[in-house]
Each structure stands twice: as C-alpha cells, then as structure tokens.
C-alpha cells in the first residue's frame, strides 16, 4: 500500500511538473519564432465566449448535415483522406509546381489569429490582383474535434478552387459547426488581402 501511495504521489507530481514545464511563459518568445512566418502580429480573438456558443448552438445541424462537402467522420481514421493534418504540405506544392506564367505572382501571409481552440494563419497567392490560391498555414488541430472542424473549414475555403478563390474575397459563408475557426480564418484572410492591396 505504501508503494501505491508513492506511485499516486508520483503520478500527481510528474503530471504537474510536465504541465508546468510546458506552460512556463519564459519559452513563449522562442515559439513565436518557430512559427513559419513569425513576423505578422498575433491578433487575439476579440469575442471569447461568443464563437464557442455559436459553435455549440449549431452543433446538431453539423451532426445531421451530412451534405457538407467534407471528409466524413470515419474518414478521419483513414490515412489517405487527411488533408488537414498536413494542410501545409499538400497545398503548398501547388503554389510552387504551378508554372509561373507572370512575374506578378506573389504570396501574402496573413497574421496568426488566435482563438480558444488554437491558432489560424492563412497565406494567399495572387496573380496580379486575383487570388489564385489559399493555403491555411496553421489551423487548430489539437483535439480530434477541432481537427475535424479545421478540416471542414480548410476543405471549404482553401485551395485553388475553394470558396475564397471563387468569391475573390473574405466574405464567405461561415462553416456551420466551426464558427470560431471560420471567423479566425476569415480574419487572417482579410488581413492578408488588405496587405496585398
């Protein structure tokens, strides 16, 4: 029994130590530098609870709405159908492999927008003033749920044939069930568009 108490104490102590070590603010600056494009300022999400509530309130519609064009839940397990977990990888080559027809092609990176589920950062590719591609550099994917929502948002907005390229603006419909991520996405996107013009 003494050993069990020892083990339980060890469990509590080591969990605390690990959380404290990872949470120590002294290392935050270093992380910011690790971000792919660390220059843009971090824009904190203004409304704390509001997006969360919105997310929740539309949750049933998401659960029932199989019509949304996105990988199904079960597909989360299949290794092949995981565009979002590596959202940077599959879409990034598209910008480079595309034959550069004009020298006016440029990429603009939006700021990191933080929400309670994680960070969102969007990069757009423009030819002249036309948006030809959108890539999400960062999306919340820490939990299976938020990963799935990110996947929805990414699938709907990003890519050379996504909603953003079709509309040529950040005024796109919010993905139901993923309000917070959609909002952050649009915010980073809008900032990128503003910066490009």
């Amino acid at each position, binding site marked *: 029994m003494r050993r069990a108490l020892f083990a339980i104490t060890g*469990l509590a102590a080591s969990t605390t130590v690990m959380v404290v070590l990872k*949470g120590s*603010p*002294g290392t*935050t600056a270093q*992380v910011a530098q690790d971000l792919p494009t660390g220059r843009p300022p971090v824009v904190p999400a203004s409304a704390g609870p509001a997006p969360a509530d919105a997310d929740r309130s539309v*949750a049933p519609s998401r659960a029932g709405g199989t019509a949304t064009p996105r990988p199904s839940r079960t597909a989360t397990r299949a290794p092949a159908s*995981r565009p979002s977990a590596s959202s940077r990888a599959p879409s990034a080559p598209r910008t480079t492999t595309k034959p550069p027809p004009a020298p006016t092609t440029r990429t603009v990176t939006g700021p990191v927008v933080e929400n309670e589920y994680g960070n969102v950062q969007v990069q757009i590719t423009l030819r002249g003033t036309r948006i030809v591609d959108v890539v999400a550099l960062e999306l919340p994917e820490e939990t*299976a749920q938020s990963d799935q929502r990110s996947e929805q948002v990414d699938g709907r907005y990003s890519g050379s044939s996504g909603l953003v390229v079709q509309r040529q603006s950040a005024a796109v419909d919010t993905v139901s069930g993923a309000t917070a991520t959609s909002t952050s996405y649009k915010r980073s996107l809008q900032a990128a568009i503003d910066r490009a013009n």
Partner: protein
Amino acid sequence: MTYPRAHAAGRRTGTTSSRHGGRSAADVRPLVPPRRGPGGRRLLAVLLVGGLLASVLPWWLDTPAGSLRSTAATVTAAGRITGLIAGYLLLVQVLMMSRLRVLEHWVGGERIARWHRDVGATLLVAVLAHVSLILVGYADLEDNSVLTEAGVLLRDHEDMVSAFAAAGILVLVGLTSVRAIRTALPYELWHALHLSSYAVLLLGFGHQFSNGAQLFRPGPVRTGWIAMYALVLAALLWGRVVAPLTFNLRHRLRVADVVAESPDTISIYLTGDRLERLELLGGQFFRWRFLTRGCWWQSHPFSVSAATNGRWLRLTVKVVGAHTAGLRDLEAGTRVWAEGPSGTFTAAHRTRERALLIAGGSGITPIRAMLEELPPGAALIYRARTPADVLLQRELDWLAEARDTAIWYVVGSRDDPGPRQVMSPDGLRRLVPDVAKRDVYLCGPPGLVEQSVRVLRRAGVPRRQIHLATFEL
C-alpha cells in the same frame, strides 16, 4: 504451549492417511533447486517504467513549450497526460494478469499480485483524474458547466458513451478491491466483478483513437499504441488459453482420493499423465478448477502440499466457504483443470543457504512441500491455535529427521505467554540464533504474517530475505 520437536500427534483429531501421508515423506528428493536471481524481475520493471515514459512522450513532443497559457489548456493538458498514463497502466494491469509463464518465472505470482494491487490503485486515481480534468478543461474552454460538458461529450463525441461506461466499471472494480470492502464481499462476486475489467479494455479502446489528441492522427504513435494493445492481447491469449490448454492436455489431471486431515481440512490427491515431466517447485500453487456440476465455473488457488514426485500431486485445503465444502464430496476420477504452477515462494528463490519457515494453521501446506527441497539445516515454527489445527504433523516430523530440520510447534492463542514469547525478536533469536542470516518464508493468516514481518524486521532480517505467500488473486 511450545513443543520443541515434540510429538503432539496424540492431541490431534482427524485422520491421516497412512497410505499417502507415509509415502510422501518417503519420496523425499534430496535435490535442492538451483537459485533464481532477481535479474529478470529488474529487467521487467525497467521495461515497464520505460513504457510509461514512452507513453507520455508523444504528448511532450506534441506540445510546444509555453503553449499552455490558459487555465483550460493547462487542465486539459493534465487530463491528457493522466489519460495516456491510465491507458498504459490498464495495459500493464492486464499484462500482469495474463499469467504468462515468463512473468511468473521472473517476478512470481505473489509479487505480481502486489504490483497489480499497487498499479491498480494508481490506475484508479489516474482514470478519475483523467475524467475530471478533461471534463473541467473542456467545460472551461467551451464555457459550459461540467455537467453540460459531460452531456456534450456523451452526445457529440464519438465512442464517449462506452468510454464513460469503461470508467464506471473501472471505478467499481477499483473500489471493490479496497481491502476493507473486498473482505466483506464473497470471493465469487469479487472475482466476477474483477473479470469485467476486460470489458474496460474493450470499451475504453475506441475513445482513445477517436478523441485522443495524441492518437487520433495516423502515424507512429497511433500504430505503436495499437501494437501495445495487440501485444497485451496476444500475451493474454497465450497465458490464459494456449498455455493452460497444452498443460492440461498433456497432464490430464484427475482426482485420485480425498482424505480428511482434520475436521475442517482435506487433502486431495491427484494423478495424471506424464507427471514426471511436471516442472513444479515445492511451495508453488495452481489455480484449480474441479470439473463437477457445481464447481467447474470457479477456479481457486491452492498450494501443492507435497513436492513433485512424478506419480501424484496433493493439495491440502481448509474448508472455509461454499466452494471448499463441496470439495469434500469429490469423487475419484473427477477431471481437474489446473493453471500453473505459479509462485516464487520456493526454495529456488532463497538468497541465503539456510531458511526459517513460519507457518500458521493451514499455511503449512506450501511450506510442507518446500521443506523437501530446502537445504538441510532449515528451521520451522508452526503456529496453530489449538492442537487440532496442527496439520500433516507426522510428515513434518519425518521430514525433520530426514532433512535435519528443527521444528517448533507453537500452539495457543496469540495472547498466550508461549506464542507471545516466541513471536518476539528475542524469542526468535533464542530459537534461531542466526535468524538475520536466513531467508524467512511466511505463510498463514494475515494477522500472523503482519506480526511476524514486524518482529523479523526488528530482529534484523533484511526485507529481501522475507518471502510471503499470498493468494490474493
């Protein structure tokens, strides 16, 4: 009363089978089994701790330093760590109960039972911490109350209903294993509850992969985690199904005779095929399943009460419950399903050349078997409440002569002057002057064992020289 090598046989009621009892003593094997060191046990302990670290490592690598800025993130992170630990410990628990021969050899059934109990307590706490931390963390993140969040988890997250069920069963199993509660329950009920922990393994499986932050992505971590499950399942299948099946098909044990040793103790003699190939050490036990109408569904651990002799096995059982009462009526020829042998309560696990054995009541049975395999010069203190509780005395006296063993029968209640005098550091040292240089083997009622350990420690016996026989599982 204390009888130094005295013959209190006349005081004893009950019958001894001279046919069997006399014979067993005549088959004394002079063989002392070779020693088994603690190397295997230490290796396993290192492997298990290494696995624990490896199971938390994915979280450590996935979490950027400084990323836990809000309370919700911190609490959720702690919930994830405890979740990973709980998932790993559950596998360890099942592995330890897989009855793999290697584990029994390296660690021994008694010690495994102790590990299992300690890890079990930790697992219970880890699961409770995981559930509550995740609930609080998520509730904080989504601005819900904890109860609402529990509802949300159950409704919106995949596999969470079964995960909650798994946690419920685990808590139930854990609580009924708390000693005070467990002793109040019938063994059968406790055992049935404990078997339901396999359901925990099954029910808890899904949510780790559909919701686990470190496991829901395909990759080496997920593959490794699934591989651990597969490994434990394979061990379980081997230790619980394949190995017992081969053993029982090879030896085909059956009841030869049931003999009363005292009014409330019986000896069951078993025969079988190829018993000369049975690798059994004195002091080890099997889990026995007597294949009769009323008994087949329960298995109970009993020590073998005579060293292996190639012709028969014997177990001596005190009649205490409904199951053991039924054993009186076993008929010759009844098939017996045995799982084992298990246990490190053997002469092979000694660290010193000489031994002191302390037995209480029916706890004599493994010690009686071990006496045949200990090097000469052993000493035995046999505690019994009344002379009628002294079992197998004729054999013991015979062994004492044949193997140069000193035996003291210490009869009386715990508070009588004789037993009190013997069970003190001074008393022990007077009987066995070199007690601190001996291995001490203890088997008996918990009260006696606890008291003896205390006294032995005060008499200067190092803990690693004290061997306990426990049949907790």
